[in-house]
């Protein structure tokens, strides 16, 4: 089924791109419920090699490979490990926490990994534990992801059976236990400090930082918090080396990224490509073009806590730094595609309503601000007078919220709001 190209005018000539599957290499090809199938496809080879290495050398390998957190912020994974490894030397324990609380609208990449190749990220978690000398890990999975939970449970059981978890792993003297914790329907708990509160059995209110988790995380101990996709890269880098990894993607954003493309495209789905492809290539070459021949209008990149772009951004390289320089964001890798006729104002309203629903209420500017923005957006949709002034005021208010809220939730509404105002002011104010 071929779709309509994203835009036919002013199109640069580029070669057709293909998926570059390293994380999803085994996805859909092996039985995710069988550790033997995983091992036959190279599973746990990275762990075997890692256990013969110096833990600090593993951390250096991650830093030099240029791996950056795939949860949204894009921070250097090696640096994070280094800080955690060195944080609070007198503390008796260290922990790894796997952020599997995927809840950003339009994002389902971690679910694909957990459902189709759960051993990959579990192997990455064990290696991460070894590298920072932790002896315990928690996987915090959102409560709605039943299939991911079931497959992860099974994978952990099998990893114990094979001696990849537990005491004296493969005779190395390294002990590591892994336990699943379930979320219960709070988007905010995907934020790393809030997740730690939830892990401790409390309400999902964010913590003040510093201290960062590397110094004082779960139960007050140094904690490495990494996303499922990030950890899935770890065994591959250990196995194939940093040079191999740097050969993928771009100089400043090495490796691949899982993009989840949804909305008005012919073939919505989860696609893995080297960082640096363009939005047009994602839509036309991977997602089969626009659905039903409708023209491209906009994309919301990174989910609700993301940015709207119009067709002027179709040929920008999708890397952390390039998008940031252009006032957009890569975020979690969500690409929500809108076609001509889809109202940006409705999707923006949906994002603002989402933040209002998910605000925990701890910081007043966020608690009041998210409610105010929804009310003002209502007015904007329902024919308030002086719409441009109202829109300007909303952007100012969201900016104030961003500078006075503790956690990323209060800092997020400015992203879709300001970008929608930038590209679609005409539609929002008429």
């Amino acid at each position, binding site marked *: 089924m071929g779709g309509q190209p994203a835009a036919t005018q002013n199109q640069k000539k580029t070669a057709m791109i293909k998926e570059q599957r390293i994380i999803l290499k085994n996805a859909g090809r092996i039985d995710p419920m069988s550790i033997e199938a995983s091992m036959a496809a190279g599973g746990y080879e990275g762990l075997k090699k890692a256990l013969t290495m110096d833990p600090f050398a593993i951390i250096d390998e991650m830093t030099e490979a240029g791996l950056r957190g795939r949860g949204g912020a894009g921070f250097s994974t090696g640096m994070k490990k280094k800080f955690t490894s060195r944080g609070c030397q007198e503390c008796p324990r260290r922990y790894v926490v796997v952020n599997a609380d*995927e809840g950003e*609208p339009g*994002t*389902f990449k971690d679910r694909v990994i957990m459902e189709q190749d759960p051993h990959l990220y579990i192997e990455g978690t064990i290696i991460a534990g070894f590298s920072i000398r932790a002896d315990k890990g928690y996987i915090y999975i959102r*409560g*709605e992801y*039943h299939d991911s939970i079931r497959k992860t449970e099974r994978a952990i059981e099998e990893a114990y059976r094979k001696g990849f978890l537990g005491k004296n792993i493969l005779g190395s003297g390294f002990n590591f236990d892994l336990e699943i914790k379930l979320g*219960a329907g709070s988007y905010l708990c995907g934020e790393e400090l809030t997740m730690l509160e939830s892990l401790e059995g409390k309400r999902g209110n964010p913590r003040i930082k510093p201290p960062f988790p590397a110094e004082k995380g779960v139960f007050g101990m140094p904690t490495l918090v990494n996303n499922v996709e990030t950890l899935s890269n770890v065994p591959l880098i250990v196995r194939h080396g940093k040079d191999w990894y740097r050969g993928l993607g771009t100089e400043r954003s090495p490796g691949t990224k899982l993009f989840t493309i949804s909305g008005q495209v012919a073939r919505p789905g989860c696609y893995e490509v080297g960082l640096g492809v363009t939005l047009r290539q994602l839509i036309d070459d991977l997602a089969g073009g626009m659905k039903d021949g409708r023209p491209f209008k906009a994309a919301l990149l990174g989910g*609700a806590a993301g940015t709207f772009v119009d067709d002027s951004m179709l040929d920008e390289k999708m890397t952390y730094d390039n998008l940031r320089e252009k006032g957009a964001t890569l975020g979690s890798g969500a690409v929500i595609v809108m076609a001509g006729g889809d109202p940006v104002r409705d999707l923006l309203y949906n994002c603002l309503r*989402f933040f209002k629903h998910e605000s925990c209420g701890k910081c007043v500017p966020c608690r009041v601000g998210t409610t105010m923005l929804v009310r003002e957006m209502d007015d904007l949709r329902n024919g308030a007078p002086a719409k441009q002034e109202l829109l300007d005021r909303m952007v100012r208010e969201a900016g104030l919220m961003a500078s006075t809220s503790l956690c990323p939730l209060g800092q997020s509404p400015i992203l879709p709001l300001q970008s929608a105002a930038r590209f679609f002011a005409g539609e929002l104010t008429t």
Partner: protein
Amino acid sequence: MSTQLILKQFAPEQHNLLMILHALQDAHPQHYLTEEALEAAADYLNITKSSVYGVAGYYTMFSLKPRGRHIIRVCVSAVCELMKSNGVIDLLEQELGIRTGETTPCGLFTLEVSECLGQCQEAPSMMINDRVHNNLSPDRIREILEAIRRQEP
């Protein structure tokens, strides 16, 4: 299973509170946390009732009032709305004769909405208890409801 048996599956430490609340709620035929269950959890973990209630009230997956045997959760996040989840809710309200947030008088269905269920490649989506249903069309929704009604006594 009795409340005490469920509690004993977990170490009496506060970090197990969410897991305990999930287990207690799943064990109740009306999928909710009774006052007795909350009190038992507080006693077991040796923490205040208010902190247990605070957690139970905070997380949207926990309910403090009785619900139906089948909980329908329709995704209303960005992608599903773009792909017309409003129509899904309208149709369900019509078919079930209840509004969002309500339970059918027979106790079979509760209709709720949910934020992103992570099924965006096949939107619009909903979950009924543990099962995900994607690519929803009016016919498909009617079929799903009918199948559940048929298997109930």
